[in-house]
């Protein structure tokens, strides 16, 4: 048996095992396509990734959206280049659109769809290099778009928001649309130091994971008191009401008149009471958009958590802030430095300086304990001003 024959044979045995079981199975799916399963099997047998990046292709109309993939074992399988397809907000795909995706996958690819990628694009794998140009032309003629690779804004993802969820403080899907209306250039041209991701959640439960998986996260919230709606709360009965009262981490809720009352001043919008109240408590009415910066999952020394940058009142302010962040990022990040890495390197204070913003307590989880820092003369005067007029009590 030659090496390659053995590798393929052993690989097939392994793949056969993976094919088993009740969970929806990607091997069973792959075997219904022209995807090179043998190559995959061999890599499992060899315990070694057999792919490598396949250089860059520049295709008119597709400055981003194409990933070249070749293998180190052309004797088993060659390439599985992929195009990344932008889909509508909230990942709603109409049946017509889905048909088209399938048609293109059958005609140009290997009859396989990646639906969905973890950043919520559809991918069409297995398009030979020489067909990519034609694919792009035909695809765009069909009114469809590819994108979301390279050093550009990657796909903006959102939770379902107002479309289906009562917790939503902002219409996430509409905001994504608005983002592309205004900033499509950011997504189109890979001209940034590194990729940039924007994700949007309708409430602090953050189903879009915008606070960690995105360079910029937008979260809908509120700042007044959660609304205790109608008499729904009384109907829940004593035990459930007690559970609601006890769920509040800031003790903002107390019993009153058989129902509850909430001290809005203490509410930190944690959503716990809402989750227990079966619709009888709703988000407050004074909406706030929270803007987070610098989340990422692969920092140089591990994942980096985002920091809250600011709370704003309007979508317009959100968009303007994004623009400002992008400007700072473009001008100050090193090559292949994500926004989070930049902030890690220069410190949140340094980043705020670049943003021309004053530091605020909301930018921090905790305050410093280290007493070594300089104080300028201007600050000394400012402080003296603020604290003047203290009484004395003997």
């Amino acid at each position, binding site marked *: 048996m030659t090496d390659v024959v053995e590798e393929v044979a052993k690989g097939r045995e392994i793949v056969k095992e993976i094919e088993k079981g009740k969970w929806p199975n990607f091997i069973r799916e792959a075997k219904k396509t022209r995807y090179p399963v043998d190559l995959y099997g061999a890599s*499992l047998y060899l315990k070694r990734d057999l*792919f490598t990046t396949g250089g860059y292709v520049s295709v008119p109309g597709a400055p981003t959206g194409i990933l070249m993939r070749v293998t180190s074992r052309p004797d088993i399988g060659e390439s599985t280049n992929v195009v990344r397809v932008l889909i509508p907000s909230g990942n709603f795909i109409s049946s017509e659109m889905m048909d088209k995706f399938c048609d293109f996958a059958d005609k140009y690819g290997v009859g396989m769809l990646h639906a969905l990628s973890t950043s919520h694009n559809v991918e069409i794998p297995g398009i030979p290099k020489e067909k990519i140009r034609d694919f792009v032309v035909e695809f765009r003629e069909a*009114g469809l778009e590819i994108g979301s690779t390279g050093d550009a804004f990657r796909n903006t993802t959102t939770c379902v928001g107002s479309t289906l969820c009562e917790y939503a403080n902002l219409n996430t899907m509409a905001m994504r649309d608005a983002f592309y209306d205004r900033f*499509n250039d950011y997504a189109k*041209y890979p001209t940034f130091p590194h990729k940039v991701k924007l994700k949007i959640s309708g409430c602090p439960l953050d189903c879009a994971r915008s606070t960690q998986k995105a360079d910029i996260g937008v979260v809908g919230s509120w700042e007044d008191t959660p609304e205790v709606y109608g008499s729904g709360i009384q109907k829940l009965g004593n035990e459930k009401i007690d559970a609601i009262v006890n769920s509040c981490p800031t003790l903002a809720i107390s019993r009153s008149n058989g129902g509850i009352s909430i001290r809005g001043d203490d509410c930190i*919008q944690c959503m716990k009471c809402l989750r227990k109240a079966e619709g009888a408590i709703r988000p407050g009415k004074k909406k706030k958009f929270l803007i987070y910066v610098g989340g990422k*999952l692969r920092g140089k020394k591990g994942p980096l958590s985002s920091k809250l940058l600011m709370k704003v009142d309007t979508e317009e302010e959100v968009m303007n802030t994004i623009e400002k962040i992008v400007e700072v990022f473009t001008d100050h990040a090193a090559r292949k430095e994500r926004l989070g890495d930049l902030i890690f390197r220069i410190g949140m204070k340094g980043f705020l300086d670049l943003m021309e913003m004053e530091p605020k307590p909301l930018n921090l989880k905790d305050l410093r304990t280290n007493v070594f820092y300089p104080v300028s003369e201007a600050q000394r005067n400012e402080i003296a001003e603020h604290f003047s007029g203290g009484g004395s009590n003997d």
Partner: protein
Amino acid sequence: MKSRNISQEVEAMIEGPPRPYLNYIPEYLKESVGKWVTHRLEEPGLIEHVDSEGRKVYTVKAAATPNGRYSTDTIRKINALARKYAGGSMRFTQALNMEFVVSDLAKARELKSELKKLGFPVGGWKEHLWSLTSCAGYFHCALAATDAPSVIQRLGNELSEYFDEKELPAKLTVAASGCPSSCGGSFLTDISINGIHTEIPVVTEGVKNCDLQGTAFTCPVGAIQLKTLQNGEKTIEIRENLCIGCGLCVGACGGIIFKTPEKTDGHAISIGGKASASRYGTTLGRIVVPFLPNEPPHYEKTVKAVRTIVDTWIRDARKGERIADWVDRIGWEKFFEKTGLPFYPQSMDYLDIRAITTLRDGSGR
């Protein structure tokens, strides 16, 4: 802002994703947008949503394949169900599951059984397994240290009953990524698997064919140095003391390889990840098993480790406690005691100065 260099050719095109979104959601959903007042789990995988005018819709959630790959054959069948039951539209959730919005309960139940017939379990809300996701892994990617999809496939088989039948103490999410890039969303799920390389790559002859400058740029810690040999040829050198073994250079240039990935590649398990935008913030998964070997197809050791964690959690957690909440309450000491997992030094040094400022040396070596 720095000036941008954009070729003319490209300038003319691309309008971004299809929109407005209202064109792509079911007709009967449009009226209710922004008016929802409550929802309720009707039965596993089936939620009733009620709007302020009493209108109702039903969402049905079905499990995805680990890495979201499907044949067009299957997608066409699913799409046919979307046409028939869900107003000619379907969506994928944050965790890549399929979701259908149906206008009445009977139809939703029918859809549910059709999906099951196609092999897609319906479930995954409330105190259940919500999702199992993976990145591309060996299946497509150039960077994988472990084949995330096949690991998740095994875990899916193992945990499937918690998706629809059995209850758990709380929500459970599982994700695997083939390498530290964490495309699968690992570190953010209750149980996360992360591929890791544990050797330093070597530079081979083949490096000649690579874009050396470009390769050096991929290194996140500046461990790659350009060098000119005595014969004038250019090459690169990896500074071992700086290299963190991330593997990005290996993916970028075929001339840089891991010598014995079959031994040194593997994956770590971290637990307790959880996203949140409340004041308490997101919790990242913390590493509880620093290394497991790649042993396809069955990954017995990985399955054993995950089962141990899940079973202990089920036994010990109070109702409503996600894994992170549970560990918060009992502490790491008890976690290791109760699970019997061995503790390795790799879990140490978190936030110690050396772990932050120095690289490989400070990380437990």
